[in-house]
């Protein structure tokens, strides 16, 4: 029984590790500046995790293989209550490894979250609502028009409550997919109209809740042109699984022309662009 268990534990361990190293299913390629650093940190962590996992399972298997009861009369186990030296050694070693990992794990976070977006970032306001994304562009004047919840009217397609009487709102566009420039810092200002949503584009290596009552500012720098799927990653109700949109990362000039367009043209151009770019899924 002991040998069978040891073998099963080893097989399960090997298969688990194999699933991870086979590479059949893995991250899509990163498309942000912080992406490679995050991937590197992930790799380091998963190597530590993999080694610890394998070592513990192999050790466990070895114990049950080796120390099974042979049934010989009078044969007894080793009488020991432990060893302080060993306790100290493994406590210190794991503490050093785990806490260093924890501290290393802060660098990407710190580079993204501990300072505001650099000046001159491309800014988009994201307003989520149950099962739909709205992306608000400031237009030619680069100033966001005022919004007011009282003016929201989904029926009249004023999804974010844009105040038409505000001069800076005149050239604003609100569209249902997001286009951002490549190679420039992008700032998202995240809001929600109803419940908590979460913006999730896997190749961005990036996720953030959109919390009603708060405006959360986040930033990142995309590095690769393409069309990517955008999902909601916080349970927001019945059609959560369908709250889908697309993110287009475009050359800066394209974005500049887009930004200068009035709403109708902007929308039409987005439709063209979405059709033009194939979806990147890996």
């Amino acid at each position: 029984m002991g040998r069978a268990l040891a073998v099963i534990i080893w097989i399960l361990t090997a298969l688990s590790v194999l699933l991870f190293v086979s590479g059949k299913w893995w991250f899509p390629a990163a498309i942000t500046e912080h992406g490679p650093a995050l991937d590197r940190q992930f790799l380091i962590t998963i190597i530590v995790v993999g080694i610890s996992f394998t070592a513990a399972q192999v050790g466990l298997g070895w114990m049950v293989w080796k120390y099974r009861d042979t049934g010989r009369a009078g044969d007894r186990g080793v009488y020991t209550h432990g060893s302080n030296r060993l306790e100290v050694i493994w406590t210190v070693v794991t503490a050093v490894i785990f806490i260093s990992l924890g501290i290393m794990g802060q660098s990407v976070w710190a580079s993204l979250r501990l300072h505001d977006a650099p000046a001159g970032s491309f800014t988009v306001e994201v307003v989520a609502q149950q099962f739909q994304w709205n992306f608000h562009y400031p237009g030619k004047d680069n100033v966001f028009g005022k919004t007011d919840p009282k003016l929201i009217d989904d029926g009249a397609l004023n999804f974010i409550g844009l105040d038409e009487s505000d001069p800076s709102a005149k050239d604003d566009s609100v569209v249902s997919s997001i286009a951002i420039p490549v190679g420039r810092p992008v700032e998202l200002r995240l809001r929600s109209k109803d419940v908590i949503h979460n913006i999730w584009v896997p190749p961005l290596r990036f996720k953030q809740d959109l919390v009603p009552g708060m405006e959360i500012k986040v930033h990142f720098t995309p590095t690769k042109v393409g069309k990517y799927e955008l999902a909601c990653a916080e349970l927001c109700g019945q059609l959560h699984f369908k709250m889908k949109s697309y993110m287009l990362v475009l050359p800066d000039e394209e974005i500049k022309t887009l930004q200068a367009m009035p709403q109708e043209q902007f929308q039409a151009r987005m439709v063209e662009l979405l059709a033009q770019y194939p979806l990147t899924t890996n």
Partner: protein
Amino acid sequence: MSEGNHEGVHRHPAPTGFIRKYIFSLDHKVIGIQYIVLALAAVLVGMIMSLLMRLNLSWPGTSWPILGTLFPGGAPNGVMNPEFYLSLVTMHGTIMVFFVLTTAPQGGFGNYFLPIQIGAEDMAFPLLNMLSFWVTFVGFIVILSAIFLSGAESTVGPIGGWTGYAPLSALGAIAGPGQGMGMNLWIISIAIFCVGSLLGALNFITTLLNMRTKGMSLMRMPLTCWAWFTTAVLALLSFPVLLGGGILLLLDRLAGTSFFIPGGLYVSGVLSGTNPNFPLHTGGSPVVWQHLFWFFGHPEVYIAILPGMGATSHILATFARKPVFGYRAMVFAIFAIGLLGFFVWGHHMFISGMSPYSAIAFSVLTLSIGVPSAVKTFNWLGTLWGGRIRFTTAMLFALGFVSLFVAGGISGLILGQSSLDLAMHDTYIVTGHFHLVMGVASIFGMFSALYFWFPKMFGRFLNESIGKFHFWITFIGVYAIFIPMHIMGIVGMPRRYSQFTEYEFLKGLHPLVVFVSVAAIITILVQFVFYFNVIWSVFKGAKAPDNPWEATTLEWNTSTPPPHDNFAGVLPVVYHGPYEFAVPGAPNDYVMQTDSGVEVTSGNGHNGHRH
């Protein structure tokens, strides 16, 4: 068997009527069994729900006629709709976490064995003990009604996941299906459950502090008792916070307050304050709910697993025929886990809009909680080292616990890092991680405990052959179910999606999704064999002697099953630590705690080493 016994005090005589004996019993042993039966019923419901979810995820759009009959609102014509799937998610999580993982380990086994293991004739407050069970039972009826009652109204149960994030959970029916009556019942059930757990925790702590028998010093207690005690402390300090949060949430829903609902919301085409269905709300903070919830929620996962750790240590030592390696370190590790457990709740909220600086503190603290967990693993291996392992079913499950605890816990190193959480948050790697560690590992601890203590509780063994079959399939099955989920998470599959059909980047994962479902179906089917084993063995199992496993602690000192006052009026006196196996020179390879005829110059406080 034991010398130096002294008189116990009978505080309540054994009842004779059926109702006082088996229903409203004051006897901690009966109450413990009641809790276990409740957990066995709850886990059946939760498991069938998970089966339905797997069916929907792998074969979306398929019609299951029986579902259409049972839930005409949730599965019209037998095809599950998204809101029904999400209410299954919510109910599965809530039932499993509260009514299985919190009741069976603590209320069940803790209730039955803590008093016996410390040499007491009952809990400190038997009446409170009875109340705590029946309050919990009412909570279970209420949570079931949340899905079944509203099912009859052709809507569905609550939607919110077990975390019930506000404002989705706070807005009421306006926020869509699953936010009406079912959500009220969900909150009320949890509030009731909190009260029941608090009564239980109060009892556990007082009993352990006040009622240890002569010679049962703290450092002679079995590790199970340490685990139950720490669990009780965690419950005592964390459930009130959830209760407070639940009251605030209920007021937001029913009294129109704005604790968690900010102003200016526009939900389902209605602006807050412009419609009687959606009163005016201003200024609340959804993040406060998350803080209150996770301040409870994180200790809760240790409430689920600590008793399993205790049982595993206990059973490993017994069947390895060796003292627990590093008893004192084990006790400190339990404390360290319990203490740190109160300071890491923020790692559930890295991307919730919380301060990025506090995220760093939470992240580093979270990684450091891996240290006592690793210490426990090392000591379990140390306990096996040099042992003479007897592979009973109980031992197999305890070994399975160690394996699963490592497999599930280790990915905490990934999820605990704020940077990596940017990619991993709310994906299937989280689902895989916590199911393996707090779900399945805890359940393995309970299986192990049941196979181990069943003979003491019912005087009959569980069938070992069926038990081993149950172990092999379940052990392989849970690996097959939950390890692939980690990979799904790396690809980026979000949790709580009723279908993965909408996204191209998820389509490649379909074979894995089907594989997991098939593994889940097989594993679930095998659990019915376990149920059969339990029911059959209660009546027909092989008769068990008083100390069938040649174990050392006090529960094996009394008759099988124990008499009403546990020790037949004579409380035992304790002379040794809890795990004196393989003592050189002793007549047997185990020295019972009450055995005054053998001198062991040891104890667990002496340093020096020799091994």
